[in-house]
């Protein structure tokens, strides 16, 4: 009998353990769940990938403010539960949550495959368009009272507007830009300077002095902490804007920009080549700056360069507003972090004065975007919380805690971040050689070799230019086929807009019809642009283009003279 009892015990033990574990888990979930979410409290879940110092604290504090506000106003109580998901897994996590129908009420939008983002937005996120023309109720009592919501954002909510959907899909709560961080104490010790120089020649001179010195362990100082990522920042902010003057030769449709197709046409037509002065200047600039990066920077990650900076082995580190708070905290007790603008040559620079015709322009962007999921059972409360975060005072507080720049106009900026104010006047890049396909691969390979000093610019040009002109044509034609695919895709979208407009009624008038027509007529503009390109290619094949788009031909000068003479005569006659 004992034996039988013993055998029974062993047989049913696993089941018993499972059963007990289940009951214990259920009890914990029940008790804990009740503590997190009492029956009479609405719980809003908000998720993001920002594990940087300050973000969770900022959201928690504003969540508490919001809860207190609701209590004070006699509104149903709300509890905000935050989920911070590591950046590397965020995209997968969000996808799973959305598809599984268990996504939080509010999600930071990003880290999703770009080719699927539109589909995700359409399927899973609530359009916020109904709110953008109304004032934000949380701006009452401020200078933004009565101002439509979209006009209160620094970028006018332009970044939140998806033209493919004709909807605003998120609120972007902060403004991002990039600058150079530097080690103030080390700068003083190695160069005698109290502030980092932003004059280009003075900056190079400081880098040279830094590079000649070694630390206590005999290791040379690295003037600029480099990596693949930080090179990209330098490229966008300094190297590419120096190519601005290419507009004078390559802006064939005179829209103020040089597209990859226009550049191809002018190079193929022999109007310019890769030794064109602004292009050669860019690569000279790259060589002069990357000389002060650490060896092998191309293969290093952003964290590698950041580490070098924190270890006080490197002087300058290119980063964004999102890095500021973290850097200051990591450096606390070791050194003071300074912020300066990127050095950019001026008109009086001995080498670049002829191409550096102005300061560099920065495109201001709002970041930290949050949307409301369609599966939220409390979408009104979710939107209300986002409106709260987008209120001027609340946005200011949120970003002050996080250490970022506010995304709302007029909200006070941390003095440390004033240096990140975007530069809204200046020059921008005009050298887009990316035609996709094999041309892009060849360019990437040669560009990387140039960055690490394995080939000179002349060698890069010798290898790339013939390839670009010959193979580039095939890739260029594929780009045009892609244009046709885009036309078809847009026609599909237009069919949907037409159906929506027909359902809205109004006999051809009303906003739904205006939306429809804007897209329908844009198809014509797209085809006209391609016709113009065909003509240019034909002209380029027949004869080299002689006059740049912004140059006056003799015939044009004669016409101007005639018109001016006529105008002068009219003035003399008192007309």
């Amino acid at each position, binding site marked *: 009998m004992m034996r039988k009892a013993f*055998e029974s015990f*062993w*047989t049913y033990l696993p089941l018993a353990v499972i059963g007990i574990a289940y009951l214990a888990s259920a009890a914990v979930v029940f008790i804990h769940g009740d503590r997190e979410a009492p029956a009479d409290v609405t719980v809003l879940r908000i998720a993001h990938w920002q594990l940087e110092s300050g973000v969770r604290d900022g959201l928690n504090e504003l969540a508490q403010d919001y809860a207190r506000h609701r209590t004070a106003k006699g509104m149903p109580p709300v509890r905000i539960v935050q989920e911070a998901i590591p950046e590397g897994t965020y995209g997968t996590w969000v996808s799973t949550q959305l598809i599984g129908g268990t996504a939080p009420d509010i999600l930071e939008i990003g880290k999703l495959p770009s080719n699927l983002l539109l*589909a995700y937005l*359409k399927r899973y996120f609530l359009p916020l*368009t109904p709110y953008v*023309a109304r004032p934000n109720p949380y701006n009452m009592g401020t200078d933004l009272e009565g101002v439509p919501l*979209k006009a209160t954002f620094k970028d*006018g909510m332009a970044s939140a*507007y998806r*033209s493919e959907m*004709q909807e605003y899909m998120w609120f972007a709560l902060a403004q991002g830009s990039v600058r150079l961080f530097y080690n103030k104490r080390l700068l003083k010790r190695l160069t005698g300077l109290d502030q980092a120089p932003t004059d280009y020649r003075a900056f190079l001179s400081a880098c040279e002095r830094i590079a000649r010195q070694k630390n206590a362990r005999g290791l040379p100082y690295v003037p600029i902490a480099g990596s693949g990522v930080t090179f990209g920042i330098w490229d966008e902010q300094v190297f590419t804007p120096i190519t601005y003057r290419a*507009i004078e030769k390559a802006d064939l449709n*005179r*829209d*103020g920009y040089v597209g990859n197709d226009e550049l191809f046409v002018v190079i193929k037509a022999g109007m310019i080549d890769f030794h064109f002065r602004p292009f050669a200047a860019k690569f000279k600039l790259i060589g002069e700056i990357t000389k002060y990066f650490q060896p092998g920077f191309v293969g290093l990650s952003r964290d590698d360069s950041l580490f070098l900076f924190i270890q006080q082995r490197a002087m300058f580190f290119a980063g964004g507003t999102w890095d500021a708070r973290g850097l200051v905290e990591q450096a606390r007790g070791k050194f003071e972090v300074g912020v300066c603008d990127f050095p950019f040559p001026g008109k009086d620079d001995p080498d670049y004065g002829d191409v550096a*015709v102005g300061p560099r*322009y920065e495109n201001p962007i709002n970041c930290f975007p949050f949307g409301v999921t369609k599966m939220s059972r409390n979408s009104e409360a979710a939107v209300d919380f986002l409106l709260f975060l987008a209120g001027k005072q609340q946005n200011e507080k949120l970003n002050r805690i996080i250490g970022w720049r506010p995304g709302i106009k007029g909200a006070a900026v941390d003095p440390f971040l004033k240096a990140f104010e975007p530069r*809204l*006047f*200046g020059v*921008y890049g005009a050298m887009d050689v990316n035609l996709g396909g094999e041309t892009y691969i060849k360019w990437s390979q040669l560009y990387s070799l140039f960055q690490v000093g394995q080939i000179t610019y002349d060698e890069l040009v010798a290898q790339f230019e013939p390839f670009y002109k010959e193979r580039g044509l095939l890739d260029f034609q594929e780009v045009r*086929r892609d244009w*046709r*695919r885009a*036309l*078809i895709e847009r*026609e*599909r979208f237009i*069919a*949907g807009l*037409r*159906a*929506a407009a*027909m*359902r809205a009624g109004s*006999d*051809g008038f009303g*906003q739904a*019809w*205006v939306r429809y*027509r*804007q897209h*329908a*007529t844009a*198809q*014509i*503009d797209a*085809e*006209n642009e391609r*016709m113009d390109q065909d003509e240019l290619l034909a002209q380029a094949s027949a004869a080299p283009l002689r006059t740049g*788009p*912004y140059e006056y031909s003799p015939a*044009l*000068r004669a*016409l*101007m*003279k005639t018109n*001016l*003479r006529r105008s002068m005569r009219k003035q003399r006659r008192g007309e």
Partner: protein
Amino acid sequence: MVGQGALRRLDGWNMKAPRKGNWSRGIAWSLLLLLASAACTRQTRESPGKLIDEGWDNFSLGEYAFAIAKFQKARDLTAAGTETRAQALFGLASTLAHRTPAPEMDQAEKIFNEIAREDPDRDLAAWSLLSIGRLKQIAPVGTEPDYRGALECCRQAADKFPFHPAGEEAFLHQIHISLMLAGRDRNKLRGLVRDLESFMANHPRSPFRSSLYALGARCLGQLEDHPGALAWLVKSFATAERSTAGPVADQSGVYWKLAAMAEFKCGDLDTARKYYHLILKEYPSDQKKFGVLRALERLDQEETRIRTELAAVRPAAKEARR
């Protein structure tokens, strides 16, 4: 030991089939039936109108198979010749034409023709004719667009429904395709300009005026009447529809285009200055601001050069006349 004991017990359970075993089996079967019944949903009868709305929702989400099913169901639930049936057919044809992969253009065209034939005067007949024209023009990659076929369809739609939104849009595409096919033929281009002038006179409220003025500007540009082209482009800008639903429309690009056209095609310094200054006034933070200041400097330098030249010529001319 445990395993063998379990097996013996299992065998015992099967062989003996005690009352306790019957109970267990009964419970298990009941549970199974309960679970199975939870998967059943009650079928409710949906109205054709609701099915059509759902069909378009599916279309927008790219779920074309579901969209087709909805439109087909709506079609089957409605009587021939009714407006609702025509709407279901229109949705079905649109989905067949635009679905990916494997669009069925021929089938779509057939259905659009059916809609137009059933009631040639109805609203959807106009949209169907326009849709056929668009299908012929927006051909899949690798297929040459049938511009002449598209032109014919658009002409039919425009002639039959001259004051209908679909008819006016069809006229726009008719002009556009004609312009593409005209090349540098001056007679054809002049003919298009006349057609456009006639349309503008007869359709003072058409929402397509702006796009038509822009096409007219292209025609005049091909005819090398650049001042005329500029004037039509200005009218195009003046008559453009403004959407209040999206971001505030950025017209800086239009101003730049007008200024550049005035400067480089018409040699009209004053008009060029006017539009460059509008960019500075209305878009002070625009990315092109630097370019605008350079343009104004360029215009000033050129005007100074011309005035100096003219001033030098005038005394010499006076002397020659004496």
